[in-house]
Structure formats: C-alpha cells, structure tokens
C-alpha cells in the first residue's frame, strides 16, 4: 500500500485574538488514501472552507501538521508552495474563478504554462482535459459565453490537466442549478472511477451521498466519518451518472 495522499494531524486554525477568538478548526486529524472520494459536509461556519483552504495550500494553519503526498507542506517556502499547488493539487472553486476575457482552453492551459510545459504539448493536453469534461467543442469560448455548469466543468478540466495527486473541490455545485450540478457530479464520478483522489466540500446531502466516504464537521471538529462504498470500486453514483448521460 502506497503512502496516503493526504495526512493531517491535529490541525487548528484560530481567527482573531482575545475575546473575539474564533476556533475555525479545533484539532482535525484526517488521512485520505489514494483513489478515495471524500465528501466533507457541515453547516455554515463549521470550518469546512477553512479546512479546504488549508488542504489546498492556499492558507496556513495556526498549528498542526499537513503532509501532502508525503511532503510536509507547512515547511515549504513560497516557491516550493507554488510548485506544490501546481503539481500536487487541482483546486475547484465555488465561484469557478476562471480568468475573465480568456478562452476556455487558455484557462485550462494556465497551470501547464506555470509548470513549464511546451505550448504544443500544452494545447494537446488542455484539449484532452476539456474532452474529459465534455466541452471539447467550447474550447474557444470565453467564460462569459459559457453557462455556470460549463464554466465549472472548464474549472474541473483546469484542475485535472496537470494530473495532480489530489483534486480539491470547494462547494463545486454551490452556484449551480440541479441540472448543471448533475453534469459536474457525473464528471467527478467518472474521475473517481478512473482512480483519481477527490476531496469535495458540500452542504448538499445529495452531493455527499455520491462520495465513497462522508465526513461531517461541526464547530471545527470531525464528528462523523462514514465509509459509504469500498475504496477500490467505482463510487455508487457512477452507474446512475452513466445512465443519466
């Protein structure tokens, strides 16, 4: 068995000082194996977004350790952090966060450009990633010419184009209608079937239900950790998703 993709131990994040102190994370320990599909659920203010930002190396914890693919992220300098974000993590935001006035394919190419991939190879891989999310025919469109669901799928393509060890999604369906939600979740099911490691944050039960493992977060602590389907099999939603397509 290979080392876990993600391993956090006693993670704490404290905002503010004195009276106004808020413990967003209060001792979270978590191990995610390769190929797992984890959904983290919790109500607003449960600290799930804070956890996500720390896992995505976008924010730093107040204390605790974080190993990503065996690398201690908390000890990395700015340069290596940038490298880790680029090579190890694919981040999907609730607000899509595509670069405006830039075509879909150029958006997907961006992480490859920062990784130093040659333009030709970059274009080929970006188009392949867009194919995976079913948007190969929209490569030339700019974000404002795409629907929310399409924008989010472009963002997914951008996250997986570098073939990262870990796909992180922060409320990926939060801004989408039910139809687009279905589209995006189908993509996740497919990726999980293909063996990708996915961690997804959501407050929607139907999104959580399709993951292999469900974690509930309350007041910065893990209160429930359920395996819903076996680690090395396709997720439950995969078949439904296939048929729905």
């Amino acid at each position, binding site marked *: 068995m290979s080392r876990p993709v993600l391993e956090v131990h006693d993670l704490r994040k404290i905002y503010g000082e004195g009276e106004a102190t808020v413990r967003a994370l209060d001792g979270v320990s978590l191990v995610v194996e390769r190929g797992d599909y984890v959904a983290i659920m919790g109500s607003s203010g449960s600290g799930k977004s804070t956890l996500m*930002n720390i896992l*995505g190396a*976008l*924010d*730093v914890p107040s204390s605790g350790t974080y190993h990503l693919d065996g690398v201690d992220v908390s000890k990395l300098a*700015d*340069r290596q952090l*940038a*490298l*880790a*974000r*680029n*090579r190890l993590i694919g*981040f999907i*935001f609730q607000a899509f*966060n*595509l*670069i*405006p*006035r*830039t075509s879909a394919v*150029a958006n997907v190419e*961006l*992480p490859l*450009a*920062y*990784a*130093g991939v040659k333009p030709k190879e970059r274009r080929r891989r970006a188009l392949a990633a867009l194919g995976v999310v079913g948007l190969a025919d929209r490569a030339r469109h700019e974000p404002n010419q795409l629907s929310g669901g399409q924008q989010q799928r472009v963002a997914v393509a*951008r996250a997986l184009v*570098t073939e990262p060890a870990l796909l992180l999604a922060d409320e990926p369906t939060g801004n989408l209608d039910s139809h687009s939600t279905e589209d995006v979740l189908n993509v996740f099911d497919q990726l999980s079937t293909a063996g990708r490691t996915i961690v997804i944050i959501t407050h929607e039960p139907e999104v959580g239900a399709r993951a292999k493992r469900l974690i509930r977060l309350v007041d910065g602590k893990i209160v429930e950790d359920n395996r819903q389907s076996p680690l090395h099999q396709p997720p439950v939603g995969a078949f439904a998703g296939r048929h729905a397509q």
Partner: protein
Amino acid sequence: MSFQEVVRFALRGLSANKLRSSLTMLGILIGVAAVILLVAVGNGSAKAISDRIEALGTNTITVMSAGRGGSTNTALTTEMADALTDESMAPDVKSVSPVVSSSATITYEGTDHDVNSFVGTTPGWFTASNTPVGEGAAFTADDEAQARRVVVLGQTVVEELFPGVDPIDKQVTVGGALFTVVGVLDEKSSTGQNDANDTAVAPMSAVRQVLTGYGALSSILVEAKDPDKVDLVQSEVSTILDQRMTATSSSTSTTSTPYRIQNASQLLETQTATADTFTTLLGAVAAISLLVGGIGITNIMLVTVTERTREIGIRKALGAPRRVILTQFLIEATLLSVIGGALGVAAALIGSSFEIVGVKPVIVPSSVGLALGVSIAIGLFFGGLPASRAARLRPIDALRYE
C-alpha cells in the same frame, strides 16, 4: 516558465483591456511629447534670438546721443568719431564708422519707395555692421571723400523698385538728387517688426549734402579688434567721449552721460537670459503636464492591479510563483510606459519639424531622456508596487479581495 511566456501573458493582459491600455498610453504620450516639444520651442526661440543678434555683429558697440533733437551739447559730431580712432587712447578700436540716417523716398522710373533708413556712412561700416554687399560693390573711401552720389540698396528696396531688372548702374532719385546704384546688400535675417532689408547705404558726405545736412550724427559704430575686447573698447570710448563732452554738458546734467552705448554682446546676454527664463517657464508647464500624466498612469496602474487582485489569487492557486506574477505585471507596466513614451518622443520629433508660433523648435536631447525616464519610472514604480503587494498576499486573501 520562460520569460517569453511571461511576456505573452503580459501582452494578453494588455489586449484584454484595449481601451484602458490605449488611454494610459495616450496620457503618457501627451505628457512626454509636451515636455520635449515645449522645451524645444523655448530652446528654438532662444536660438533664433541669439542668431539675430549675432547677425548684428557681436564685436561692435553703437554710440548714440542721449539727448533729443539736435541740441548741440549732446550731439555727436564727426570730430568725436575721429577722436575715437586715436591709437593711444583707444588701442583696441579697429574701425569707427560715423552714421547719419533718415527716412527717404527713392524713385526709379516713376516708382516710389519709402525707405526706413537711408544710411550715410563710411566704407568701413559694411564690415563693422556685418552687412556684406552681395551684388556689385560697396562705395569706396574715395567716393566718400568726393561725396559721389552712389548708393547700395537693400533687398526689399530692390524688389520694390527693380522687379526683374538688374539695378546695378541704374539711377535713382533721392531727395531730388540722382544716385547711381553700385551694389545690392545680401539678404539679412529680419529682427521682428523692422525689415532689416528695407535700407539703402550711401557715402556720408553725399547723404549730408542731399538729405540730412551737416548737423549731428545719428550714431557712431565702433568695431573692436576682437569680440572679447568689446567691453574694453566700451570703456575706452566712454573715457574719450566723457572728456569731449563734459565741457559742454556739465551745465545741463551731471548725473547722466549725454550719450548711450549699445553693446551687442550685452544685448545678446540679456536676450539669452530672457530666452532661458522663457525655456524654463515652458519646461515647468510641460513638467506639470508630465506630472499630471504620471498621476494618470499611477491611477490606472493602481486600478488595474487592484481590480486584478482576484486574478492574481487564481493564478497563485494554480501554482504561479510570486516572481512570475510580479514579472508579468512589471512587463505590462513597462510596455505601457515604454510604448507610450516612445510614441510621445516620435510625436515630439514629428511636431518639431513644423514651425510652432513662428519658432522652429530645436530638440534638447536631455529633455527626451528626462521625459522618457520619468514616465517609465512612474509606470514601473506605480505598476510594480501594487503588483508586488498583491503577489505577496496569500492566495486565499487575494481570492477574497473585493
């Protein structure tokens, strides 16, 4: 990630906001062009003035009577002019030309022309006053001694009286007497309102006979042996004139001398100083416009970077190192200011080939460097500062930035 790639990102960033980019460049363009052009205009007018004064001759002084009319105690006489040639008292004087002048009407075959200054003088005047004869010849000392009625005409007079005709050896009528044209003066650069070419020069003895009579001289033109000795000559001349004139003038006035000395090099200095002030003034106005342009650049750079803080956050989240982001924004700022500045220099160079308010601008190279340098420095500093601030943010803070 290669530098070329970053440049491509920067270009894409600029072309994503074409209107804003071109307006920023326009601001820089106008600022830079204004500085260069206004300084060039100031410099050009200073040059024009000094050229004109140098054309008058820098190694001469002109002695004029300070009194009004022909009152005898302040009048300049030929005896005084002769006294100025005294070798022992005025060793640095090269030549002395007494001058009488009046306005006169010249007639040739029924055509009249009123000439402003009909000058009567000695042959030495032509070299001393830097007024060479183009066609024909000047009159000689013999002509002067014999009071021969010969005349050398200025270009304007020739154009008026002899259109398409060679004036040499023709006879013109001045004040009822016939004068033979022996030469034509070279064209002279004009000093503003007075047409320097509207003149005629004849032997002093002849002019006195025909026009002015034997009264006082209008002025005495004294030529120094060397341009550096003009001041020396001036003091020598004053000494002699003081001796000659005190006897008669002490009764009227002791405070002011009865004559005035005009010194071309002094005139040149005064005029140059005036022109320098003028250039400085124009330069200050232009500098203000550059400053305003600079504030415009600053503003747009700040807005651009602030507006794109979120984009910076996204790029960081996708794994862009700080250096790459900073480089991208610096290149964008540099391109804006360099292209704007270069276009400004080009506009100024094109503009300087035209005459502006009657002045041919002369570009001052240092103004080009200064204007370009200032605009680029402003662009880099105010583009780079907010960019480096944004690049240093944690990605999550940049993403949350509103």
